């Protein structure tokens, strides 16, 4: 089943096009990364999914329904820019958001207490937000998003502004909810988190989709890269696009080798064997998502 579907969605603000004919789908139970640089259209897309703003054209389906507040019982949302009511207590805050999402007061309080206990904030349940540290407030914010055990959790740049401890906590919660069957969509421009969490991902630039698929499919879009230590230059071997000399030791030379697009490192190894091409090392370097991002989205946007 499809948890989220966008079909040709466009959003214009005046004469500026923020999202351009965006189409993708997220399967039930998936952890889906929504990657793009600043101003790529991630937040606008997520706001349209949540019906905070309406698309100029296109169709959105969320859990098989049209976007709207009637879905809020099944949704969790953690916005990029986060804040809480300073004068409310931690538990009141979580209960309030739980009730806004259709929970009963008792269920929201019980769920809120359980989450605060799990996050190590059981003793601060009745402390006002203004008295909590920033890290504690961040945990309360996360609790407001997941108190209703959402079927679909949408996180907009969830790791931005979090300290390393809370980043770890958030990753754990994402994995826990995923194991329990929730679908998770999160936007980020920090590739390490996407690498650790995503089943599939989408790359967005200037409001347009640049890639959608698994991490392996994303990496496959980059030419394979190898480190060889050989007696001779591998430049003349079939499928090699370039070979750069790295260092030399006892008559052996290190080479940074790039294959032609679509080239298979296995084919190169086979060619070496068949030709008696002497090798002391044959190491395939796996391209990172960061490399993929830089390649697809473009230079400056990939800077963290």
């Amino acid at each position, binding site marked *: 089943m499809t948890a989220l579907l966008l079909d040709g969605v466009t959003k214009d603000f005046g004469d500026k096009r923020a999202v351009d004919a965006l189409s993708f789908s997220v399967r039930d139970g998936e952890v889906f990364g929504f990657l793009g640089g600043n101003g790529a259209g991630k937040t606008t897309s997520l706001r349209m999914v949540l019906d*905070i703003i309406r698309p100029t054209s296109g169709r959105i389906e969320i859990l098989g329904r049209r976007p709207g507040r009637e879905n809020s019982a099944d949704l969790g949302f953690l*916005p990029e820019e986060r*804040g809480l009511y300073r*004068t*409310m207590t931690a538990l009141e805050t979580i209960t309030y*958001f739980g009730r806004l999402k259709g929970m009963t007061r008792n269920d929201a309080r019980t769920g809120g207490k359980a989450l605060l206990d799990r996050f190590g904030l059981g003793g601060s349940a009745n402390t006002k937000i203004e008295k909590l540290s920033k890290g504690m407030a961040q945990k309360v914010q996360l609790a*407001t998003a997941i108190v209703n055990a959402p079927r679909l959790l949408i996180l907009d740049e969830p790791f931005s502004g979090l300290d390393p401890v809370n980043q770890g906590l958030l990753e754990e919660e994402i994995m826990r909810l995923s194991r329990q069957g929730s679908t998770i969509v999160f936007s980020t421009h920090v590739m390490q988190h996407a690498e650790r969490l995503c089943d599939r991902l989408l790359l967005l630039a200037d409001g347009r989709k640049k890639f959608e698929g698994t991490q392996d499919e994303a990496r496959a879009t980059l030419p394979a890269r190898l480190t060889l230590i050989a007696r001779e230059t591998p430049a003349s071997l079939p499928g090699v696009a370039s070979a750069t000399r790295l260092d030399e030791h006892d008559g052996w030379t290190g080479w940074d080798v790039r294959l032609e697009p679509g080239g298979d490192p296995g084919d190169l190894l086979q060619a070496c064997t068949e030709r008696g091409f002497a090798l002391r090392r044959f190491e395939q370097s796996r391209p990172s998502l960061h490399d993929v991002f830089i390649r697809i989205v473009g230079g400056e946007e990939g800077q963290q």
Partner: protein
Amino acid sequence: MSNPIFLVAAREFRQIAATRGFWITLLIIPIALAIAPITAHFMQKDHTENVMLIDPSGQAAPAIAARIELDHQRQLLQSLSRYAESHDLDRADPRAVWAHHDHYYSDAEVQAFVAGGGVKHADAAMRRVAPPDTKPFEAPEPDYKIVPTPARLAASDPAALGRVLPAMVSHATKDPTAQPINYAIYIPADFASGRAPVQVWSDGPVAGDLMGVLQETLTRAMRLHFLEAQGVRPEMAEAAQRIAPMIAVNRPLPGKGHEQVMIRSILPLLVSYLLFMSLMLSGSWMLQGTVEERSNKLIEAVLACVSPGQFMYGKLIGTIAVGLTMVAVWVFAAIAAAFATQGMIADILRPALEPLTQPSVALAMIYYFLAGYVMISMIFLTIGAMSDSFRDAQAYLSPVMLIIAMPFAIIAQMVVRDPSSMGVRIMSWIPIYTPFTMLARLGAGVPLWEVIGSGLTLAAFIAIEVILLGRVFRASLLGAGSKPSLAHIGRLMRRGESE
């Protein structure tokens, strides 16, 4: 599942109710009502002023004292007459002078009243026919009291008096047993000749009525002296002094006429003022809350759960609930004070609460109050949604406050002076002033067509306002950065374009 509008409203209410400012404002009127009778009691203490007469001839002082006493008795008679009229007690003695309310009491009538037993006798007669719960008659205190003249002063010459009396009347004397003197009056023995002046020392500006008494009494003595010198027989001269016109007085019954307009307008004017006060306070609290929601970046998380419309209505309802709670507490305190207190406060509050006994007036007041609240709160709400900080909000708020607040004082004055004047009627049809003006006018009576017409106009204005400002509110919630210009606000009203 609770309606999200009411969840937002309840949160808004709780947030405002948790502030110290809310409680101070809430309690200020009950506290004021509680201390008002005490203050009034203290303020009434020093009403009577002490007058010392220094009269070497011994002829003028008794006449002046008699005149002051006669004027005080006239004041008592007038109060009794008004009391009898208010409580329908004329039947106690229809022939008594206090049962005649249609003229200014002559000296002869006052003297007859005193001779007939004065207040004591009249009050006893009224008590016999008055229902048991009738408020007792409270005699006004005399304006002036003649204090004895010390022997050392009675024999002093004007020059010596001029050295001693200024200190006495300015209470600078060191003698703690000395009675405070407000006026010291020296009447020379030969004042009738016109050669020596009558001298007055006072502790402040001289009272016109006391000078009137002095002038009239002494003039009378001088005229008598003159007439006798002209050969007029003493009894004829005396009779000539008593010639006085009969003055008929036509005035409305107590609590009617202009007095009625004044008293019956007190509650509506007060409600109008309360609307204004509570609106300004709860509106600014709500505005602070909205600015906080924007600056704390928590709007987006809320908007994922409730629509901007639900959010807006929730905030409006929460603010109205705050305002109504304040006004309910204030009105309850006023009613409690009206029944718990006596004297001036109760005299004003009880008739002032009378308009509420007419369901149509009470309904109209509730309508205009609520409509006023929605109309002005909507403006505050939109300003809050457009502002990143309270300072930003001030830029919009100041002109709006000026437009709303400036005419308020004028409306109140105009309503008291003439509730059906053209200016007041025109203001009733300008929607942003309709609630204040109509609330203020209701006590004096407003034609039904005007109530319905201005009410419908106001309703239409509010509907359009909620639609247009609602668009600005929704579009501004997630916006950030520079304040929108008036042109941009205009565009948002027309198109409701988001972000």
